[in-house]
């Protein structure tokens, strides 16, 4: 098993660390990094420890890395699955803003590690080198099935999200009043965010959001088709999880939408040019 990668372009480095790694670090304490020849995946599976939330983030390595070499566990399974703490990677990259180059390598000194070596400019002829060893756990082949891409649920309503900055400030204020938030939306582009506390209930209404067109895969009716356009599908979710998702968004995504399965789960999809993020928050019973 081998992995070596290098980023030389500062814009790519900042995009990778500030927009992607910092977001992942906010959403998951530990997560899985899956490496293939062409892509990187950050995966959080829906175990109870995560409060049932799960995440799937996918990006093409070619958009970020100038060099990328990888050899998986075996020829037929040319992939690597590593468990790690994204906050560590964020910390390592955070101070690399003026780096000449960043190299990442899988090593095994005392234990398996991702070694991040940052080459920084210095007044002397030789560069300053900062090395961070981030411990990782290698996930054995037999457990890879636990981390498959989640399928899009059979949703009742799919709707584009409001401007994330607005949604973030609304949710942040609501967080002070309640631990849970109800998201409801219909196929007429209307969404409401509702909280209820002992003394007060607050609802924020959004209109004209638009509903994304989903082509049905095999021509059969999904729950969404033939549905009354005004009828709301709702789910009550942990407000902190929603706030964490919104807090991580530094840049406006190209597309941001959510799929609601009534009283079951909310599936968020945030698409940027080079990276896609899916986040599933289950409804509180």
């Amino acid at each position, binding site marked *: 098993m081998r992995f070596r990668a290098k980023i030389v372009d500062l814009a790519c480095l900042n995009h990778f660390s500030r927009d992607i790694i910092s977001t992942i670090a906010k959403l998951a304490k530990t997560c899985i990094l899956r490496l293939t020849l062409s892509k990187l995946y950050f995966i959080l599976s829906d175990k109870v420890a995560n409060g049932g939330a799960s995440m799937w983030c996918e990006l093409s390595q070619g958009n970020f890395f100038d060099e990328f070499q990888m050899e998986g566990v075996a020829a037929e399974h040319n992939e690597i699955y590593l468990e790690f*703490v994204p906050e*560590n990677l964020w*910390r*390592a990259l955070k*101070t690399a803003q003026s780096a000449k180059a960043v190299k990442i390598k899988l090593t095994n*000194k*005392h*234990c398996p*590690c991702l070694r991040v070596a940052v080459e920084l400019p*210095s*007044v*002397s*002829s*030789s560069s*300053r*080198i*900062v*090395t*961070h*060893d*981030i*411990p990782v*756990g290698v996930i054995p082949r037999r457990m890879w099935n636990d981390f498959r891409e989640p399928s899009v649920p059979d949703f009742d309503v799919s709707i584009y999200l409001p401007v994330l900055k607005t949604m973030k400030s609304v949710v942040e204020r609501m967080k002070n009043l309640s631990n849970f938030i109800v998201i409801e939306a219909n196929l007429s582009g209307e969404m409401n965010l509702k909280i209820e506390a002992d003394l007060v209930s607050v609802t924020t209404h959004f209109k004209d959001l638009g509903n994304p067109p989903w082509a049905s895969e095999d021509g059969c009716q999904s729950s969404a088709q033939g549905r009354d356009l005004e009828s709301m599908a709702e789910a009550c979710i942990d407000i902190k999880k929603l706030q964490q998702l919104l807090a991580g968004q530094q840049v406006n995504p190209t597309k941001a939408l959510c799929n609601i399965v009534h009283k079951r789960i909310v599936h968020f999809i945030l698409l940027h040019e080079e990276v896609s993020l899916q986040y599933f928050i289950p409804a509180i019973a």
Partner: protein
Amino acid sequence: CIVQCFLSLAVFGRAIHAIARISDEFWFDPIEKGLALRSVNSSRSAYACVFFSSMFFQHYCCTAVSQPCQKEKQLSLPCKLIIKSVLPVFRCVNVLERNVEKCSISTSPSEHHITFQLLCRHGVVKTYNLTFQECDPLQAVFAKHMCPNVLKVHSRLLADVMIHFPTSQEEITLSVTPMKVCFKSYTEEDTDFSRTMLTEIQLSPEEFDYFQVGVDSEVTFCLKELRGLLALSEAASVPVSVHFDRCGRPIAFSIEDLLLEASFILATLCEAEKEAASPEPACCPQPWDR
């Protein structure tokens, strides 16, 4: 009775904050030449001394108090102050200089008070009367000139190095050879590597204003205690000198210019020794308190 007014509140405030990292109390020790603030931590593994020469102040007056029963004139004994009571006076150093026009410190031994008075904008006057305890003098003796390894560098470089370590990082190891300098996270034998992120920074000797390595060495010291000195050095724009020897011997970080001198002397751990070190600084035959 001693009265002083500051030239630079920001520097004085940072000095207080730096000393606060060492201990909860500090020694306030005025002498004719200037004002010394000293502190030592409870395990005696860190000692700090900041000395402001009389030129640091717009007005400095330290009069000896003559004791009729003594054979000779004696300056009033140093006194000990609880640092927590002083910190609020200099809480937001950045804001201080903007809002405070003048600051004065005066002591009246008869009343066991030290008075800090801040004359602020808009005619606001803040007066803090802080009680002190008289105590024995505190002084560490550390022969810097006997250290084989000496580095001198602008505080900016050290700050740029320390930024790569988490703020929670307790100890770091400085490793030098004549060819390179390396700061790294401290690890001990039973460190759980599968849970710990390790950071290492390598620098070339050329980055230092002065670089002398007489003996290859690897010393481990407490980073938290040092951060305060770095902030002070930055505020005062004075480069930092590092004097050290082999592991187990103390390491001294100091700054010096016409107006102020500061020394932070920290004990270092020695891998060879089984027990964690709490060594006396070199050449300090007498105990801390006499």
